[in-house]
């Protein structure tokens, strides 16, 4: 499979001269494989640029098929949704997958953030055929030849991690998530309140333990490295993680390569590149490659 990074930033798109090498668009990753439908994960501002690139493809003729998997519907993961060209071409078919228990509710989340008073056109302006597919954690399903499984991440509003397998290769998308150590994050507004109750801490650990099996033997783990350990210490309730925790998960699962992703808006190119280099030097090996997701880059797996 071929993985292309169209957006690698977290929180909001960053138009700043100090991020032009690694990129400022919000989360969007595309997976392609011979004979398989296009698979996209998250629809941040990078999603718009992916759509433009597809002008030369079967999607321009209205013969494209694809699926969009959403980690969750926080704005930085859906803000490109209304700007994806293939949605406006009749004949294209898409499945939109996100955490939920009902397809109508899922559609409603998108409907409510488009149209007036937030936007100038709605889902009814799409010409492509969209199917809404709600999924939950610990599920397995297929999109064409892609084998996909889900895991629950530790994030306000709850996010899903995806493991995607094809042709003997496996790719894991894991953002947004906090480590499963201090706070259990789900619904409502979270303030900083490290868990003290031993039972709650056990539940956290049990959920965190699921990641070991989920990541087992994966070729690539794309992980939420939004925070430095210092920043995380101040904000365990934000639902974001560190390279240290990500690398721990990677080692437990025997993952072959680890990519920094969902970069902090103020992770400047120079600093982030230096940080990745330092982690690679300290923790990288012939068994575990460490790198950073850069916008526009494609990885052949």
């Amino acid at each position: 499979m071929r993985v292309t990074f169209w957006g690698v930033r977290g929180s909001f798109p960053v138009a700043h001269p100090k991020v032009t090498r690694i990129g400022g668009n919000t989360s969007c990753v595309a997976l392609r494989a011979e004979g398989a439908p296009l698979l996209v994960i998250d629809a941040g501002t990078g999603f718009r640029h992916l759509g433009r690139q597809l002008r030369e493809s079967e999607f321009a003729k209205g013969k494209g098929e694809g699926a969009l998997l959403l980690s969750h519907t926080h704005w930085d993961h859906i803000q490109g949704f209304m700007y994806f060209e293939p949605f406006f071409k009749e004949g294209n078919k898409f499945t939109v997958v996100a955490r939920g228990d009902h397809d109508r509710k899922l559609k409603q989340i998108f409907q409510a953030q488009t149209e007036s008073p937030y936007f100038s056109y709605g889902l009814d302006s799409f010409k492509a055929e969209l199917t809404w597919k709600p999924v939950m954690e610990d599920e397995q399903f297929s999109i064409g030849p892609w084998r996909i499984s889900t895991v629950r991440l530790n994030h306000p509003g709850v996010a899903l991690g995806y493991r995607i397998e094809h042709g003997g290769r496996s790719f894991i998308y894991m953002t947004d998530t906090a480590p499963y150590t201090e706070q259990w994050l789900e619904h409502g507004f979270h303030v900083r309140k490290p868990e003290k109750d031993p039972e709650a801490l056990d539940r956290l650990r049990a959920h965190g333990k699921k990641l070991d099996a989920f990541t087992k033997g994966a070729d690539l783990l794309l992980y939420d490295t939004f925070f430095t350990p210092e920043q995380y210490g101040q904000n365990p309730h934000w639902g974001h993680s560190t390279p240290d925790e990500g690398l721990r998960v990677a080692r437990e699962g025997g993952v072959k390569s680890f990519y920094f992703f969902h970069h902090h808006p103020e992770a400047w190119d120079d600093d982030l590149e230096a940080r990745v280099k330092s982690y690679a030097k300290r923790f990288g090996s012939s068994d575990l490659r460490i790198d950073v997701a850069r916008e526009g880059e494609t990885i052949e797996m």
Partner: protein
Amino acid sequence: MRVKFWGVRGGLAAPGAACADTGGNTSCIEVRTATGALLVLDAGIGLYWLGRSLLAGAYGRGQGEATIFLARTHWDHIQGLPFFVPAFLPGNKIHIHGCGHAGKDLRTILEGQMAESYSPIVSLKNMPSIGNVKDVALGQTLETGGVSVRAHVVNRGKADAPSVAWRIDEDGRSLVYVTDVEYDKGVPDAETIAFAREADLLVHETFFTDDERRKGEGGIILSLPPQARRNHATFGEATELGLRANARKLLCTHHHPDRDDQTIARAIEAERDRVKGRKGTLSVDTAREGFELPV
């Protein structure tokens, strides 16, 4: 007063080198009155960077006050709000003025923005320093920070959320901000001309080029639905308003995310020629992020 641009894009942000000279953040303008009061026009992503710049001063200590005037509740005009750090620091007072729509007041619309599905903020109540959230009283003048602020609804009567043009007058000097406007047949209407009359600085959106409008193109991309091709003005229409209102200076903003620096520079040149052709004195340029000027 002094004016500084923090966001000059419309629709979606435009990260990357091609737009870096003009800037890629969605709408946000800082206005400092002579008394030092802070007024903000629009809360696009530029608001994050403005907020960051304020933390070294009174706002970092929870002693700051600001009033945000929203041109519209479309995402590109409000998406910086949940990232405006001063609104989370207790003691600051951040007021918001704007226009409700279809039976929803401004607070309800902003609450919808923070809803759990879209944001970890969940509710406006979790931003402790948000003060008054007020629906615009049309035809009224708000006196604040030694200036008077007036609102004028453009795109009146359309199905979409209304856009509000803002005018700030201070001691004989005036700033007029007009964005997300569609003029019938591309000709500015008499009311808007009267509203912008004799402005020292007119900041006007230029989402489309005149070519795009003529060819019936535009929108983010050519294949977008017809709704996406409306609701916005062109470079030529902005100049037209400046000329007819006898404004001194026009700064173009709310640029299309695909409009790179060179294309904007060419469009500005064409507008300067248009002004010359009309024997006008209006000065024309693009707004640039980080650019600061006195009015």
